[in-house]
């Protein structure tokens, strides 16, 4: 577990260097072009190298003895559970949207989120979910005529 900023910088440095390496490999695959004075890969390559070197610098700086370390405020186990569930709710919301439609998934997401995290009675969460969907329908679908994934509903 990354408990301190020193460990955080080390992890972030490794991650950014990794992103840099992947981006550098992907940049090298960019096809050449006959037009222009700047190859399409030039800037991505420069930025990838900057990320690799900058990431390495972060790691080295974090290892230096004069580095002033600080603890990172992570949530407690219950907080992690809430965090994970909130993220899972959001991911499910996005995942189910194309199949179930925007309105139904919005209703399910808001109702579940409010009921679980707010510990409200289910009818309160239900009312908020319904109100939110009603507002979104009137404003975005009916008035502004925006196209959202419809799902089983014909709009």
């Amino acid at each position: 577990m990354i408990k301190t900023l020193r460990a955080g910088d080390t992890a972030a440095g490794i991650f950014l260097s990794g992103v840099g390496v992947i981006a550098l490999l992907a940049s090298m695959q960019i096809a050449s072009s006959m037009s222009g004075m700047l190859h399409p890969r030039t800037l991505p390559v420069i930025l990838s190298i900057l990320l690799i070197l900058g990431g390495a610098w972060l790691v080295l700086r974090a290892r230096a003895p004069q580095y002033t370390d600080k603890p990172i405020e992570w949530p407690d186990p219950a907080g992690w559970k809430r965090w994970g569930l909130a993220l899972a709710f959001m991911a499910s919301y996005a995942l189910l949207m194309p199949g179930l439609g925007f309105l139904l998934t919005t209703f399910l997401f808001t109702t579940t989120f409010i009921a679980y995290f707010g510990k409200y009675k289910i009818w309160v969460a239900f009312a908020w979910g319904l109100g939110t969907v009603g507002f979104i329908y009137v404003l975005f679908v009916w008035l502004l005529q925006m196209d959202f994934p419809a799902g089983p509903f014909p709009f």
Partner: protein
Amino acid sequence: MDAWNMLLQGFGSALSPINLLFALIGCIAGTLVGVLPGLGPTAAIAMLLPLTTMLPPAPAIIMMAAIYYGAMYGGSTTAILVNIPGEASSVPTALDGYQLNLQGRGGPALGISAISSFVAGTLGVLGLTFFAPLLSQVALAFGPPEYFALAFLGLSLIISLSGRALVKGVLAAAFGLLISMIGLDPLTGVARMTFGQPLLMAGIEFVPIIMGLFAVSEVLLNVESSVKGILSDKKIEWLPSLADLRATWAAMLRAGALGFFMGLIPGCSPAVTSFMAYDLEKRVSKHPERFGKGAMDAVAAVEGANNATASGGFVPLFAFGIPSGPALAVLLGGFMMYGLQPGPRLMTEQPQLLWTIIASMYIGNVVLLILNLPLVGLWARMALIPFPILGPLIVAFTFIGAYSLRFQMLDIWIVVLFGVIGYLMRKFGFPVAPLVLAAVLAKLFETSLIQSLVISQGSPLIFFTRPIALGFMLVALSSMARGMWLQFKTHTANVALEDSDV
């Protein structure tokens, strides 16, 4: 006939009931569009364009213009109240505005935002009225090298926005630039870093990135600590005090001037100006250490700059028919729909129409102030909604904003992904603003660089041989040198500098 007389005639026409009505409708629609994350004035004007065909040109164009500058008023609302900057130009507002809201000062921040929008917006319209023909030449003096130098100047702000975490800020900016380069090369159309995924060909928009970094990460942070409400206590101020006004009036004027002049440059979006105004205010402030922690003058500067840029953008539009951004391009379409071509001919052939529109902008700014100030208390009460209810609403509206950009599910996934990235950045002390600024400027930076090098046959000296480009480059380089010096001084003498939590 001089500008005064023409303006008075314009007021005579703009104050007619039909023109007033459509100015009001435009102001209300603009405020609403500004409040809704992701739904910008461009989309709103484009959607209303077909509906205006039944109107005479003056009320139709007055309404569309009012939507444009009205959206600048509304843009700060969600940034201050729930940390969702719906547009890139509201990002610096969120940095300090949300902190003020957490301190129970969301109402005053919204009030100052409205007043500053009014002051700077009116200053911008004054500039448009009296100096348009003179200043319009600025728009023509800008070519790719000047745009590159402008983007370079914008990127130099990263040093100031990074505060003490310079290396992390630069890395965040490099990351932002790199992800903005995913997709097709702007000049050659070659696919870059798409990993064979056709969805990535269209590139990654910066709006979902902003929404993820700010809104979703905020929801995750609040959920982990089981926050019951945004405000830890119920002590709330609803309106700005005289002290707030005294502390911010100079920032409003400075932002108005900066925003107006930057607005003259086609392609210089309010987003660039708002970051510049934020940086300028931080430099001249007696308390730069407050920036990022709830500085009222930061909110005033950013919101003023937004509005003045919007007004300044009308100068090249009216003088040459050059739209300085996507929203004004759609507005130009509105003119053309009526067979009108903005430019020198419009000024001589349709002066009445032109001055009616300009006069309506003064009226529109007053209407927006009257409309927005009473709403401050109402909006500020949003902070009292329990977080378990507010949280899913934030996520739902963020998803709508992201999806409505291109109607692609990819943008929603980007919001979620950058929500997690934003969460981790905050935990690991990475400043978020440099990433946003880099993502916003990436396209302008790269396109103008490529075009400049084509013009100069590959010589970078072109950025130092044209006066405007040279000026921008010198300001950028001196700004970077100053930032580096402050960093060095901080490390050696442990002098309090800007904090890095922006």
